[in-house]
């Protein structure tokens, strides 16, 4: 009897030990790949930073290692970029366009998602699929016909053309994300609101938007990123430097023929990457997952 007990205890212990070993291996593997990915993704920004702090002379000198930081770090690229180019205007234009588009996107996508995802009506399923299909057409195919439309509206060479055109990229995808989030909200919640006397607009603003806030933030981040990084449309529609945005503006100003002003290009790229970083950091604080916990039995 006792021997059996001792044997069982030993078994349990060895099993527990193997569990611990298992977990340790899982952790080691995770760390290995995480570090690998971190190196992979942090290399370009590191290279940017290194190059941005070097003078043009140092960059073009073949003797120094381009991967190593400068022995004589300089802010001369930043100074030239900020004070002697149109970079600040591009930054301002990008900000205006992005904020406007994000607002427009949310104003369209959220109600669209609510009606498509929640108010069952004839054809809502087909419409929802249709919305998503428009997202699958790449912008490099669309910019030629859109050029005609933008030109017809007299918006060529104005950043308002971008405010008009960007939502064609952001709205479908944001609507799709929000449909998913709204559909994850239990049906009983709208029924309870309906019985409590809420109309559909109140249901959207008092129940759906607060409950689906994480989704709303995800959609906002997506729209922001798309607008901030879009390259083809500004390149195609805008040529005056007072109307250009960051992406196209940096390239057209700092690449002169076959002369690449690497120091300033890298500085511009670093500065352009800063606002998205700030926005992510700020919004992530509000990205409280699992907000729906407790609504229903979960």
């Amino acid at each position: 009897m006792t021997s059996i007990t001792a044997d069982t205890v030993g078994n349990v212990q060895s099993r527990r030990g193997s569990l611990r070993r298992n977990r340790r291996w899982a952790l080691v593997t995770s760390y290995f790949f995480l570090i690998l990915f971190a190196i992979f993704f942090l290399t370009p920004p590191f290279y940017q930073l290194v190059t941005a702090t070097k003078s043009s002379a140092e960059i073009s000198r073949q003797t120094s290692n381009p991967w190593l930081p400068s022995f004589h770090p300089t802010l001369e690229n930043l100074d030239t970029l900020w004070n002697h180019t149109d970079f600040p205007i591009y930054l301002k234009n990008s900000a205006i366009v992005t904020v406007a588009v994000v607002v427009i996107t949310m104003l369209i996508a959220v109600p669209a998602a609510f009606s498509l995802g929640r108010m069952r009506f004839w054809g809502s399923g087909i419409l929802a699929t249709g919305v998503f299909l428009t997202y699958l057409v790449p912008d490099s195919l669309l910019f030629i016909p859109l050029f005609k439309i933008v030109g017809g509206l007299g918006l060529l060479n104005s950043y308002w053309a971008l405010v008009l055109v960007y939502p064609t990229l952001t709205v479908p995808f944001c609507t799709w994300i929000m449909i998913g989030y709204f559909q994850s909200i239990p049906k009983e919640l709208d029924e309870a609101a309906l019985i409590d006397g809420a109309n559909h607009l109140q249901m959207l603003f008092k129940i759906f938007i607060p409950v689906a806030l994480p989704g709303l933030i995800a959609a906002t981040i997506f729209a922001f990123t798309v607008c901030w990084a879009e390259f083809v449309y500004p390149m195609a529609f805008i040529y005056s430097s007072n109307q250009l945005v960051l992406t196209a503006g940096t390239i057209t100003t700092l690449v002169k023929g076959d002369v690449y002003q690497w120091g300033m290009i890298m500085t511009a790229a670093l500065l352009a990457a800063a606002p998205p970083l700030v926005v992510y950091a700020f919004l992530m604080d509000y990205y409280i997952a699992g907000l729906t916990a407790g609504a229903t039995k979960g």
Partner: protein
Amino acid sequence: MAQVSLHRVVKKFDQTEAVRGIDLDIVDQEFVVLVGPSGCGKSTTLRMIAGLEETTSGEIMIGGTVVNDLPPKDRDIAMVFQNYALYPHMTVFENMSFGLRLKKFPKAEIKTRVERAAGILDITELLDRRPRQLSGGQRQRVAMGRAIVRDPKVFLFDEPLSNLDAKLRVQMRTEIKKVHQQVRTTTVYVTHDQVEAMTLADRVVVMNGGRIEQLGTPHELYHAPKTRFVAGFIGSPAMNFVRCRLVDSGAAFSIKLGDELTLPVPAERSAAYRAYADRELLLGLRPEHITEARNYGAGAEFTMPIDVVEPLGMETMVYFTIDGTEVCARVSPEAALAPGERMRFMADMRHMHLIDPETDRVIEVPAAARVGATASVTAA
């Protein structure tokens, strides 16, 4: 406070008929429970009363007004859902007051009402918490609070206790009954649990296949089921059904079960059963009416070998086989013998039911010939 009437209410989903013409009158302050197996149309019926589901045809009236075309908010009803459906981003106070705030009630009035409801449900300390900080039972109370605060004409409950564990379910059942005794609002309650139905209801509506099988007080349903379905659905463990033949043995009737067993039919029932003499029928007898042979009380005694014994503490379930059908008897623990042994049983034939297998209806017997059925007359 109001009565609720359903008149020939039908609900079709595409081609399937979920509810097939229901007539139901619920009087003011009454607690009515719709009970039945899943898919019987009970929830659909409730949702039609709430206005969450449109009626295909028929008429629904609340407080004398036809509400078919009214949206839920204008029907003056409150509903408690199976999964609580609390707003996760609001505190308990905000959850309970949401409806009143939408209706622009004055702040002081809202506060009084919420506090009164919280007092009734004993959740005053929880008013500042959010739903995710509450236990299942507390969430269910908040959901009920949200209904009480509105002071509606009708309360609708859609399986409110199904998500709770067994112990809490019993506790909340009592709680709901208590609340109804205090608030006295007309209540329609849907459940698949016949024990809940029996304990809570003034009247129970047993539904099956989109139709009402029987409507009556818990007492009536238990003692005088009208169909085989109701007889089998109400009561736990379920009623035994055994094939039998009604034999006219001169002075009185008796029923023959297989080749081995003959049980006498009480003389009061002869008139009612005469038309069915010599027919193949189904005997329905509840486990509690088959006991160990006692030297008191009336009953027909017989001996059977035991198949299985299930002790439950207070009583013991004993299973044996008659004519290939398993039969359950409810005996006192001391009297139970071991499997394989022959045990002497006693069947209280005053509680017997005979079912016509062609119609699946219980053959009607005058109230005077039934035991326990007299109480139901006054209760109705």
